[in-house]
């Protein structure tokens, strides 16, 4: 996969707006994510980070705005067909804070069932892919286990494998380590670092500043439903331009 600049970013959001009743959670948000890059979304809780992330695969439906993924343009006001939604979800993989593995299916079946149903892969093909991915996330021995038997870190790595099995163009991570003990979070972050190194386009809502600084190409700071600052992670962390960014960064560092 090439990481050179393409004319069109992999993900482009324009004027994405969403309100719950009177409360505006996203206020005309614009965002560009280049192919093969990693974007870290940070900011205080309630800033709208997760909502923005969930708008990218339309798990949350914005009130207005334009979402472009992999060149496919979706304008929310014009309505979105089931076909377009299916196409979008094929392009975008997602990893949740609470893992959300299917507890009634074995680890292997968690990874093979979506491949068979959504991509129409044969059982053998799906199984081979699942085993390859399990090896990649360091859990080859757990294919037959049920999710409830695994640690949170293991579950999250399997959730990553499950999403990768569908060959997404973009991966969304919604606070993937927030529900984990620090040492279990590390094994998840290690998998994510590898994925980034392989050139996957990633958008990550996170409180892991070290990860954001080391791995991300673009740091996006949100507050009150807006992007208040974005750009080079090292630069923003060293010299934040916005007062809210300064407050947030010092609060995180003091932890």
């Amino acid at each position, binding site marked *: 996969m090439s990481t050179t600049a393409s004319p069109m970013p992999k993900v482009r959001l324009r004027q994405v707006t969403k309100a719950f009743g009177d409360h505006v959670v996203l206020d005309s948000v614009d965002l560009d994510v280049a192919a093969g890059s990693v974007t870290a979304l940070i900011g205080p809780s309630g800033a709208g980070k997760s909502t923005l992330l969930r708008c990218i*695969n339309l*798990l949350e439906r914005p009130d207005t705005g334009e979402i472009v993924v992999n060149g496919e343009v979706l304008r929310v006001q014009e309505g979105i067909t089931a076909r377009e939604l*299916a196409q979008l*979800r*094929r392009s*975008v*993989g*997602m990893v*949740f804070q*609470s893992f*959300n*593995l*299917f*507890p*009634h299916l074995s680890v292997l079946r968690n990874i093979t*069932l*979506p491949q068979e*149903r*959504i991509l129409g892969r044969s059982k053998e093909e799906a199984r081979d892919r699942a085993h390859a991915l399990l090896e990649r996330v360091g859990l080859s021995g757990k294919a037959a286990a*049920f999710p*409830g*038997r*695994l640690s949170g870190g293991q579950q999250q790595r399997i*959730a990553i494998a*499950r*999403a990768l099995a*569908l060959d997404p163009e973009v991966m969304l991570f919604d606070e993937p380590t927030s529900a984990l003990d620090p040492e279990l979070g590390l094994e998840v972050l290690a998998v994510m670092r590898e994925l980034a190194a392989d050139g996957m386009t990633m958008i990550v809502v996170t409180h892991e500043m070290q990860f954001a600084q080391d791995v991300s190409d673009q740091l996006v700071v949100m507050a009150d439903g807006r992007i208040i600052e974005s750009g080079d992670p090292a630069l923003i962390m060293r010299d934040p331009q916005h007062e809210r960014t300064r407050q947030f960064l010092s609060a995180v560092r003091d932890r």
Partner: protein
Amino acid sequence: MDGFLAILVGVPLTLYIAASSFLIGAVVAVPLVLALRSKVTVLRVIVRGLVDLLRGVPIVVWLFILYYGISIGTFRFDSVSAAIVGLGLIAAAYLAEVYRGAILSIPEGQWEASNALGFSRVSTFSLIIAPQALRVALPSATTFGIALLKDSSIASVIGVTEIVFLTQAEARSNQSGLEMYIIAAVVYIALSFPLGLLSRWLDARFRKAVVA
């Protein structure tokens, strides 16, 4: 001893009515619960009303209505059919509520993960949500099944020759009525006890497979 054997004759019919009406209920409850969760308000309101109606009227009243009240052309329910249909509809209404609660108990994250992966609505429900909900519903459903086994005795009022009907007949023609009823109690316990065991075994089995 004669009384005991006479009462035992009712066992197959009791089991037949209870099993048939449970099966009808378990199947009919599926479209009912889908309608109860429908986005179409009219459908939801109608089925909600239907379920409340079914549950709000005593079983014995439904059986009288079905047995004496329904005649379409030359069609009339015989007593066994009336009992099966009546108990089956009430079971459907009750099990629809059990299913509904079970579906609601499945975490939102399961729907979200399934949607994010790209499963269709039908696949999400049939492959991800329903199998999990079924395990949740199982203990309540089997408890209801045991209750239904006993409630099938109400069919005696429309002349179905099940356990209680035969017990009453024996009690009338016999010096010791109480003895006959105690025999009936023992027979019911003998029938429901294995069901209780089965229910607990199934529950433990599913729990083991799912939870750490």
